[in-house]
């Protein structure tokens, strides 16, 4: 395929994914999907290789292929779609629901008896609630998957399934609308791709799939071969309730290939910091995009030169039915961190600072920004989301209007970024006073261990969680009485190079 055709078809496939994303975001009801854009869309070949993805959420990068793989062996038909969220059957954590729509060649004039399966369209969206005991389905204290909400094994998604599943979750009207939005995204993907096939012909479309995958592979290999050959190691910890858990990495570059081996990582635990392998892969792929070139199309070809090894039963390849909700938001950040650390990068805050406040009527969930690590040629930005998260903050004025709470302080946490030739970004301070009795839940990291700097740069300051001035554990749940104040100080990023 010539270089023009390659670029035009790459653009066309990308445009289809983007249009699917626009349709999904436009027609969903959840604020999560609409406002925070916590959703991704992708196209897969009939063999289940991810050909193109619209770039929305890093943690979805490597996890969609596992979802499509889980329905590959099933009987496909036009107008049939699949749904799943089971982290051990292609999902990530339960609130992320995936809908997969097989795409068939267009009907021919004779009535379309020989419609061939040509591809799959897939969308993944973070639903505001998927049932379970905790509103918002993000519990800090879960120990099995059942504690985290409704587990959906791969099944056909029709009207009956939509009703049955929605009824088991909070706000069933909203769930129905969000699921229909995902179906609409799949239909638009199917419509556009079959129209593209009609225009360029079946052979050219299949050739385009092959070429786009090969193209991404060539570009990744070109970037990897610029890295120095050899073995690098890095390790870091997660701050579980029972104590620190170890994540170990041996990264080996050999020519234009990269192996990421997490052997030596601690076993899965009783809490919810476990990851299914798909989440571990996503975090690795995100780090590889940072180390190579974010302009490379995010598809299966880009990751062909990469091998990810995580022993079964470890934190990074957990067995069912271990709880996983913290794995998706926190462990994934640490996996990306160790890969970047192995390649000499200063690290960012390394946590999403998940805060849930609520009572019987209201639930307020947010993630809080912090310091980004410095680069070899620039300071790290302050007060931003880092790595695996990519969402907006809730305005103070909106928060105080909607919830019985008052914001006492929201500011940059000065000098929390690591020193260095280039400084790490500063974290933020968010202090909230309860105006009514409220239940709180905190899932945070980097409270006991600082985000490290690199090449002589200083560490960022670790974060702190304070209740009326006394320090809380990184994972904490409890009650606030009116007048009590919860203060979150998020970590600073690591610095780069010796300070002058």
């Amino acid at each position, binding site marked *: 395929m010539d270089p023009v055709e390659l670029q035009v078809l790459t653009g066309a496939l990308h445009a289809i994914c983007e249009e699917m994303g*626009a349709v999904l975001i*436009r027609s969903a009801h959840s604020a999560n999907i*609409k406002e925070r854009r916590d959703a991704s869309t992708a196209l897969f070949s009939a063999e289940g290789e991810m050909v193109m993805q619209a770039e929305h959420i890093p943690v979805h990068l490597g996890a969609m292929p596992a979802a499509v793989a889980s329905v590959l062996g099933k009987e496909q038909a036009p107008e049939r779609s699949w749904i799943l969220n089971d982290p051990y059957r292609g999902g990530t954590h339960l609130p992320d629901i995936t809908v997969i729509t097989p795409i068939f060649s267009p009907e021919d004039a004779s009535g379309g008896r020989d419609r061939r399966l040509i591809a799959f369209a897939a969308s993944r969206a973070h639903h505001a609630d998927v049932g379970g005991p905790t509103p918002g389905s993000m519990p800090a204290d879960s120990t099995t998957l059942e504690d985290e909400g409704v587990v959906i094994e791969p099944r056909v998604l029709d009207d009956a399934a939509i009703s049955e599943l929605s009824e088991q979750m909070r706000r069933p009207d909203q769930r129905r609308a969000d699921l229909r939005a995902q179906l609409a995204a799949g239909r638009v993907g199917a419509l556009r791709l079959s129209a593209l096939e009609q225009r360029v012909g079946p052979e050219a479309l299949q050739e385009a799939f092959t070429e786009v995958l090969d*193209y991404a592979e060539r570009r990744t290999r070109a970037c990897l071969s610029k890295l120095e050959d050899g073995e690098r190691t890095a390790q870091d910890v997660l701050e579980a309730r029972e104590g620190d858990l170890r994540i170990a990495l041996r990264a080996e570059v050999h020519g234009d290939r990269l192996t990421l081996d997490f052997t030596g990582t601690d076993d899965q635990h009783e809490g919810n910091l476990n990851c299914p392998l798909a989440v571990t892969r996503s975090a690795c792929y995100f780090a590889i995009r940072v180390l190579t070139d974010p302009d490379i199309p995010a598809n299966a070809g880009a990751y062909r030169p990469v091998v990810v090894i995580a022993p079964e039963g470890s934190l990074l390849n957990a067995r069912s039915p271990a709880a996983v909700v913290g794995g998706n938001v926190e462990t994934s950040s640490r996996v990306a961190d160790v890969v970047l650390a192995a390649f000499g990068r200063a690290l960012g805050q390394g946590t999403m600072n998940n805060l849930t406040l609520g009572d019987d009527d209201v639930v307020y969930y947010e993630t809080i920004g912090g310091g980004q690590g410095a680069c070899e040629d620039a300071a790290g930005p302050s007060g931003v989301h880092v790595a695996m998260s990519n969402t907006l903050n*809730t305005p103070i004025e909106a928060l105080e209007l909607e919830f019985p709470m008052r914001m006492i302080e929201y500011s940059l946490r000065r000098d929390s970024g690591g020193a260095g030739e280039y400084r790490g970004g500063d974290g933020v301070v968010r202090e909230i006073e309860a105006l009514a009795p409220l239940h709180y839940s905190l899932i945070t990291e980097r409270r006991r261990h600082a985000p490290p700097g690199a090449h002589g740069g200083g560490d960022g300051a670790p974060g702190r969680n304070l209740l009326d001035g006394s320090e809380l554990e990184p994972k904490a749940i409890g009650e606030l009485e009116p007048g009590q104040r919860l203060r979150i100080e998020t970590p600073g990023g690591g610095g780069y190079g010796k300070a002058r």
Partner: protein
Amino acid sequence: VGTFREFERASTTEVDAALSPLLAGYLHRLAERCDEAGVPEPTIMQSNGGLIDLESAAGHAAWTVLSGPAGGAAGAAYVARAAGISDALCFDMGGTSCDVCVVQDGAVQEQSAGTIADRPLALPMVAVHTVGAGGGSIAWRDPGGALRVGPRSAGADPGPACYGRGGTEPTVTDANLLLGYLSSDAPLAGGVELDVEASERAITGLAEDLDLEPLACAEGIIRVANAEMVRALRVVTVQRGIDPRGYALLAFGGAGGLHAAQIAGELGITEIICPRASGVLAALGLVVSPRRRDVQRSVFLGGDDLHRDAIAEVVAELGEQARTELNAPDEGPEAELGATFELRYRGQAFELAVQGSLEPEPEQLREAFERLHEERYGYYDSDQELELVTVRVSATVAGAEVSLGEDSEQAGDELERASRAATLDGEQIELEVLRGSAPAGTEISGPAVVELPESTLLVTPGWSGEVDQNGTIKIRSDGGDH
């Protein structure tokens, strides 16, 4: 700023504080020079598509950040209305980028707030989307072997290789020249003469890297640039729930007309309009736009507090403020007031803006809001509590009416017809060339190029039409696949 959400408000204030001293210095020098030349003091285009007096603009630079695109959009809407077209996608392609906006029911679509250069601005502005593809965009081979166009641009200096100002990298303009859509014997606006051999050298270098023939490479550059713009137009229209097939494509800017037919074909658009004043539409926009001052305030009226009298009182207060701050000349009519209401269902994190009367009943607002909510999001919910978040009032004094067609009669004297060889879809063809201002009724049928004073329209096979009484070219597709 007057609206809620502290970050957006602070960011707007910061932008205003940082830019106003710079803009004030410039505008005051401009006013002095105008005074010396005996020209009246200029009024300034704001991001919202309305004009304001120079002193107000000098004090509030944040009002003016989209001044240029807003002028272009206003001019485009005016030309579309004059051509009898109410719905159009406007496509302004210049040297380094391409601005896209939507005209619906004859008016440029606005948004209540936007992000410019990564900084949120909580002020009303025309909804313009920018893509980094223009005539000066540089074509290159990426490390994976694909042909790419932009985002790097040669700009106007050194400019494309064919400008002969030291540029050696191939650009979109070089491709248009090599393919024969532009001509070396027709200088561009500003008298730039084009050197086709320089284009050929630049493109041949890239073609060798890509293992393509130079002409195939040039066509490839055009296709890749068009694909970028089609992608942007698709997302812009889908996000607003618009089917582009029901819209005309209004092509302007120096390079817009060269790409319009192929882009329209990709989007299923069957009508293109190309104004005679294509290269200076922004200036036309300045002449015809109203003077306008917007003032806004977040009020959070819901439940029993949301009633006719409460709304009317806010509108009246804001209206008086807007009229005062408009600083309209004393003579002439009093400024007209228009009200916009930003509403949401209680608990939603975003608002939708609807127009309303100055004393609307809450039921009228609910009806308008729910119609828009269904259009944007596919549903509405009459049981949910409605909340009026922000009220915005505009005071406007209408701009000038200008005739676009006055001199198109004698313009006919300047029309020359000729032909030249060109390459299209890999084939050598003869393009009919129309040079100069074509009189009303001139028929045009592809393959042809119309060389207008400030831009060039490429009419590909399957497209034909004529020049209307305003000098605007309207062409339609016969729907075939060419």
